[in-house]
């Protein structure tokens, strides 16, 4: 039992921090511009596929550096040429636009790389067990993922709170008019933040590609969960995103590992639900089966009970 708990916690932490890599960019973009970027997971997918190609041609190390830059530039281009244009039509138009970008990215990826999933190998220099615990090994690649996510959080946190550029970004968030008065180009700040957010998503794609799989549906699988994370954490809050990522990562990993059902639990207490019928079907659902639903249940509950999220300061 202890083994299960420890490994579920570790794996949950890894998955949660991976979610954080995606959600940090998204929550920054939302905090800045009030835009929920539907295409964010698309940029993550683009990062994974570009990472796959660059790794094949050159190497994993190069991919880790080049791909985020490319994806970031693409993101900046989308902001400059598209998002800024639809901005005057309001938030709904922006949301629809990013939805369109998401659709287009999925199609482009299928166009360029085909529909079948790609086999992406874990780079050889990270493909060894780091340590052994309870007769099971913890792969070094997961530790690497952990390290990168933590480094990213520290990097973002320091930039945002300890540097002049971060001050300007934070001020543009709350007082765009005043920042513009002081001679800063606020639209350009937005573009840069959008680009950086997309670059982070691209980096997450390169790193997650070998572990979570590289296939055309990967954006949809994670896309909605990332929304859940930033809504639960509080839109625009970096710390909230971190906490919510880890929370969801751990909840999901533990739920997947639990093979108990309500019916089973009741039966052990001597209460039967009867064979057949809807009640029986409901009762025989295991916790592992409802694991994919849990984040969305949390999302709906949070939105009803506390629309600002855990750490958010304002409603969407």
């Amino acid at each position, binding site marked *: 039992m202890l083994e299960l708990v420890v490994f579920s916690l570790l794996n949950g932490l890894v998955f949660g921090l991976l979610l954080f890599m995606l959600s940090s960019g998204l929550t920054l973009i939302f905090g800045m511009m009030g835009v929920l970027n539907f295409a964010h997971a698309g940029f993550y997918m683009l990062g994974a596929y570009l990472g796959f190609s660059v790794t094949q041609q050159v190497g994993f190390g190069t991919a880790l550096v080049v791909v985020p830059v490319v994806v970031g530039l693409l993101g900046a281009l989308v902001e400059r040429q598209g998002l800024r244009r639809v901005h005057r039509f309001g938030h709904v138009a922006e949301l629809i636009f990013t939805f369109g970008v998401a659709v287009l990215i999925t199609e482009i990826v299928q*166009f360029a790389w085909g529909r079948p999933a790609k086999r992406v190998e874990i780079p050889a220099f990270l493909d060894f067990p780091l340590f052994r615990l309870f007769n099971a090994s913890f792969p070094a690649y997961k530790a690497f993922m952990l390290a990168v996510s933590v480094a990213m959080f520290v990097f973002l946190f320091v930039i945002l709170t300890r540097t002049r550029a971060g001050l300007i970004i934070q001020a543009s968030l709350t007082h765009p008019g005043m920042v513009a008065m002081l001679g800063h180009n606020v639209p350009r700040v937005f573009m840069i933040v959008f680009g950086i957010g997309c670059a982070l998503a691209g980096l997450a794609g390169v790193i997650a590609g070998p572990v979570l799989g590289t296939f055309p549906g990967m954006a949809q699988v994670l896309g909605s969960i990332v929304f859940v994370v930033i809504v639960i954490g509080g839109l625009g809050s970096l710390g909230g995103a971190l906490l919510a990522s880890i929370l969801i990562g751990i909840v999901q990993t533990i739920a997947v590992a639990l093979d108990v059902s309500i019916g089973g639990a009741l039966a052990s207490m001597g209460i039967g639900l009867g064979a057949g019928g809807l009640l029986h079907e409901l009762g025989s659902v295991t916790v592992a089966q409802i694991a994919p639903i849990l984040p969305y249940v949390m999302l709906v509950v949070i939105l009803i009970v506390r629309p600002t999220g855990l750490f958010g300061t304002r409603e969407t």
Partner: protein
Amino acid sequence: MSTPAGATTRPLAVGDTRTRRLHGWGAWLAAVMMVLLLPHVIRTPVAVPVMNQMGIAIVFALSYNMLLGQGGMLSFGHAVYFGLGGFVAAHALNQAGHGAWWLPLPLVPLVGGLGGLVFAALFGSFSTVRAGTVFAMISLGIAELMAASSLIFNKFFGGEEGITANRTKAPVVFGLSFTTDREVYYLIVAWALAATALMYAFSRTPVGRMANAVRDNPERAEFVGYSARWIRYVTFSAAGFFAGVAGGLFAANYEILTAENMGLNASGGVLLMTYIGGIGYFMGPVVGAIVFTFLQSMLSDYTDVWLLYLGIVFLATVLFVPMGLTGILVMHGAAWRARRLGRLAGPYVVTALAVAVAALGIVGLVEMLHVLVSAPPSRSTRRLFWALVNVRTIAPWILFSAIAAAGALGLRWTLPRAAAAFADASRPGPAQ
């Protein structure tokens, strides 16, 4: 939506509103006559199934626009009510087939609608508390919830295979056995017309009018004395009902429903078609549904990457014509009333020609690229428009690049002229 500039300058005659109302009835009547005659005019075998699909899409898109266009609620999960209504209808149809109760096929869409209504009333009770981004997020959450639930509740959703039904086993009324697509076509037409008329009527009721007010300024609507939340809830439930009707029609037509029908892609599809058609007009979704379904069924015969083209068209619509296809049509009302529409023909034909040339070039390049990327290395030819093209030689690449460039250059030349001609034709005042 807004009155075109030209209309205000014309003095209103006494009989004016009456003639306009007569025109309105005439348009409805003409539309009804046309859809009734269509299967006899177009005689290709694929026409009727495609038109069936269009009818279902029209009802679905119109119901979606009750949310987005009239109520200002952007939903990423409207297919949930389409799908749930469809599943309820399919189960009801199966029960009727077993003789559990008397339910003829023409009433199945109503059952679907009630199914959609029940679930919309349930989920709407908490999702319509707020509009805007919160509503969009909750709708996404519900869509994901349903997608995940469909894998758990096998009895209701039928797992991977879905639920199949047999419409011919339902009790026969008026000698209608619905064994052919054409009989189903008339069923769909009848339901689509009824649903369209009802949804139009809904937009004219006080609730429908207040939905517009709540969309534009919820605070002010509250001050007038209406509960914005209640208005949203009523609109949402009504939209769920009509989505369920569309789902019931789907069940009657295809006799199968899978979890895919209520997935995120289906919800995205209805958003796409409604937006391309134009969310600001009642008839916008109808235009969008027809164009979308037509493109879907035609393009998918010719190319594997039709979704890529559709995505490009969608993005272009959002960026450059946010009022949609119907908006473009309505824009020409002023020129029409001033009887100057004829002057636009010349510049428009030239522009359309330039667009066609540019599209030809781009489509050629994309298709060749597609062969180069995804076809096995042994294959190097593709039939493009009129000729067999070898994509591993340089000549066709140069040719299609030149065509695309020529089209783009032509557009740069013709677009300003077309815009100038449009401005000239819509200008108020007598003809010059």
